[in-house]
């Protein structure tokens, strides 16, 4: 350990995390905007027309990032919830609450864009296949988490109840991910995997990955901004928060 090492635990207190998050939000938001501009440019102007699906395939540039983020955010949310349950740290529960609405939005976008892709490609907006159904369950898990937290007045108890729900729901994530392997689904298999080369043209893959990064940066920016609001809501009786509000006046 060097003498210059940072005490990271210091940032686990809402009081120190609040200004830090405030400094980070504009950077992540700017990164999201730049990456989205590049990703959309590649997706619409560089990537060629798909020889099977025509132009409808361009929906994947929003569908895949939204779907991945909906699953990834759930894992991060459940991890924060688990940490909060184990260590009883206040900020962890706030982080979990801050992530849920963004995750729910991406789950909705995944279903919405998937339906609009499915109609011209499969001939149907919706089918009760394993991939689609488990993604719908993910959307309901997010809504359930938010509804449960909203129904409990005491935020610490709301965190605990939400954490249990979030952790139980984690079982759904591998089900979504592997559904196309485990069952004979209408949804096609993974185009991108850790073990094999992507089964799509390099430029299409590049555009998709840039869009994934853009959505990732967006998620970080918006959830950090939301956790700041949650900190103010929950710490309203703390002297530091009131001093902050007084100073901002």
């Amino acid at each position, binding site marked *: 350990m060097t003498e210059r090492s940072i005490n990271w635990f210091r940032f686990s207190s809402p009081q120190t995390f609040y200004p830090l998050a405030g400094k980070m939000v504009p950077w992540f*938001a700017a990164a999201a905007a730049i990456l989205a501009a590049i990703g959309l440019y590649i997706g*619409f*102007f*560089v990537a*060629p*027309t798909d020889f099977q699906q*025509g*132009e*409808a395939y*361009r*929906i994947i540039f*929003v*569908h895949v990032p*939204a779907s991945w983020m909906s699953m990834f955010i759930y894992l991060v949310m459940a991890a924060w919830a688990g940490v909060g349950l184990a260590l009883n740290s206040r900020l962890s529960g706030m982080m979990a609450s801050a992530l849920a*609405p*963004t995750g729910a*939005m991406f789950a*909705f*976008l995944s279903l*919405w*864009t998937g339906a*609009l*892709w499915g*109609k*011209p490609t499969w001939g149907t907006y919706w089918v009760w296949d394993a991939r689609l159904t488990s993604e719908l369950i993910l959307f309901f898990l997010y809504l359930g988490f938010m509804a449960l937290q909203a129904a409990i007045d005491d935020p610490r108890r709301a965190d605990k109840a939400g954490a249990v729900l979030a952790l139980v729901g984690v079982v759904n994530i591998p089900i979504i991910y592997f559904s196309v392997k485990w069952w004979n689904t209408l949804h096609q298999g993974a185009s991108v995997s850790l073990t094999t080369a992507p089964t799509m043209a390099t430029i299409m893959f590049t555009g998709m990955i840039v869009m994934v990064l853009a959505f990732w940066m*967006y998620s970080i*920016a*918006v959830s950090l*901004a*939301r956790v*700041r*609001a*949650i900190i*103010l*809501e929950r710490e*309203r*009786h703390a002297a530091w*928060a*009131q001093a*902050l*509000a*007084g100073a*901002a*006046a």
Partner: protein
Amino acid sequence: MSWGSAAEFFTMGGYAPFVWGSFAVAALCMSIEPLLVRARHRRAAAELKRAGVAARGVGHEAAA
């Protein structure tokens, strides 16, 4: 570049409602969410300020 004209681009090879329906709703959601978050932050800050004013024993006229 696979587009001959702007019209061709917006037509999306006949898939315009599906392609633009996807991107428009995503753009809408991802523009509204930050606005909602900002409104929530402002509301929380205003609430905090009101609470602080009340705690110091100052009436509502001070906040106006």
